[in-house]
């Protein structure tokens, strides 16, 4: 298969053009969806002239950023600790497996009471959603570290902390990245879903507002923005993953 990336581009562009055409030709009515070109226009317009744009976008992405950092760092540390205590791991195993079985938004009311209506709740929501994916990925990636690395650590007489930082972390990276991708995706969902439900600030709230006001152009513009942001983050993570794979698995 030559140039799958090219074909992908063709398919994506084709889909967008098809939707554009369908909207303009009236197959899809204006109330339901606006043409993609108009979504882009609306987004540009928003970013330059809407008074709320930068504060809402800033608020959302800031919360997402903190939530992601918390999920990843705390998730990795907790994963390290759980891995070092096999008994604890056995006991907690059902929790890790079933965590995502329960719709996480059920915890939102509780979080609001504890953290109030504000960025803290949103951040905790995002972090709570992403952290378990990171913990599970940390556990399974440390599992896969060849046992001989641990022996090298002991022969080199590293402390447990040095072993974790200098050996476990880099050795786990290929699999850890899968967890990081999930943690990022879930943190984004957690924050935005929280903004929908809490409706105090941020892009999620704007989305709900524009929906209620039948301002479909703005609504889709915002969706486009979030989509682009997620695509960029994802792309960056993919590249990082590819780089590591190339370095590790060249032969």
């Amino acid at each position, binding site marked *: 298969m030559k140039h799958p990336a090219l074909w992908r581009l063709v398919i994506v562009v084709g889909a967008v053009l098809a939707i554009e055409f369908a909207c303009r030709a009236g197959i899809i009515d204006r109330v339901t969806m606006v043409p993609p070109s108009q979504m882009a226009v609306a987004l540009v317009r928003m970013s330059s002239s809407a008074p709320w744009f930068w504060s809402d976008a800033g608020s959302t992405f800031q919360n997402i950023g903190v939530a992601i950092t918390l999920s990843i760092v705390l998730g990795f540390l907790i994963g390290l600790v759980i891995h070092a205590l096999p008994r604890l791991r056995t006991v907690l195993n059902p929790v890790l497996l079933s965590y995502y079985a329960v719709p996480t938004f059920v915890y939102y009311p509780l979080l609001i009471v504890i953290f109030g209506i504000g960025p803290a709740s949103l951040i905790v929501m995002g972090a709570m959603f992403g952290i378990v994916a990171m913990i599970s990925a940390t556990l399974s990636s440390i599992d896969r570290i*060849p*046992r*001989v*690395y641990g*022996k*090298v650590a*002991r*022969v*080199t*007489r*590293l402390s447990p902390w*040095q072993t974790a930082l*200098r*050996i476990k972390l*880099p*050795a786990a*990276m290929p699999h850890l990245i899968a967890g990081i991708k999930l943690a990022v995706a879930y943190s984004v969902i957690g924050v935005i879903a929280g903004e929908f439900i809490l409706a105090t600030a941020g892009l999620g709230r704007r989305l709900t507002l524009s929906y209620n006001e039948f301002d479909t152009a703005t609504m889709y513009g915002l969706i486009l923005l979030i989509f682009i942001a997620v695509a960029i983050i994802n792309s960056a993570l993919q590249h990082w993953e590819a780089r*590591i794979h190339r*370095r*590790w*698995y*060249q*032969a």
Partner: protein
Amino acid sequence: MVSDADIHVALKGVTRVYPALSGQGEVHALGPIDLTIRRGEFFGVVGPSGCGKSTLLETVAGLVRPTAGTGTFEGKEIGDQVPDGIGVVFQEDASFPWLTVERNVEFGLRRADVDSAEIARRVDHAIDFMGLNAFRRAYPSQLSGGMRQRVCIARTLVTRPRLILLDEPFGALDQQTRLLMGEELLRLWRDTGATVVLITHSLDEAAMLSDRVAVMSSRPGRFIATLETNWPRDRDSRIVSEPTFGQLTSQLWTLLRDESKKALNAG
């Protein structure tokens, strides 16, 4: 008679027993082993699979605590911390895929109280000694298995170990490469003056490289016999054509044959 100062490693009654995976009973993996290794000698160990050779090595290294018996290194008890002055080369590829060859070798000195100029000097020397100069910036994934083992050996070298333990280091390599790597090992031994303990399943390798070869029984591994090879210190792989070499390997095989059969049938 060997004086106390000459004894580098001494094991007395070292035994290793661990609970069976199935949860029932125990596995008697090793021993009891009595062993003295002289300072500066090249000591080889052969034995059938599963006889506990690796466990023996890990006990000496301090990676595993014996269930019974004591082990001492330079007069002090080994315990379950790896003592200073011991280097280990493992069977599996232990080179770190995320570091270049240079950084891999440097890693060995991570804990050392050595200034950066000295680190650079030692790294340069080890890389040069193991013939890795052309690959300093390469990543292990770009190298062959033999080269990767050289990286691991270089990483061990930089710490200037007084005792070098090797657990089937050339297991994954082809015969010709093994012979050449064996020569390099001899060169290393002479150059560093370290005591070397080599675990191998290759009788030829043990016979060619060692001053003494110990033969282990099938599990639970015990020493059946120890043979002196009386080779000159500056030997290389060409001694395989000496008549005494053939006698030596025959002796080893005679000792080992029955034990190996037992191991094979034990499953």
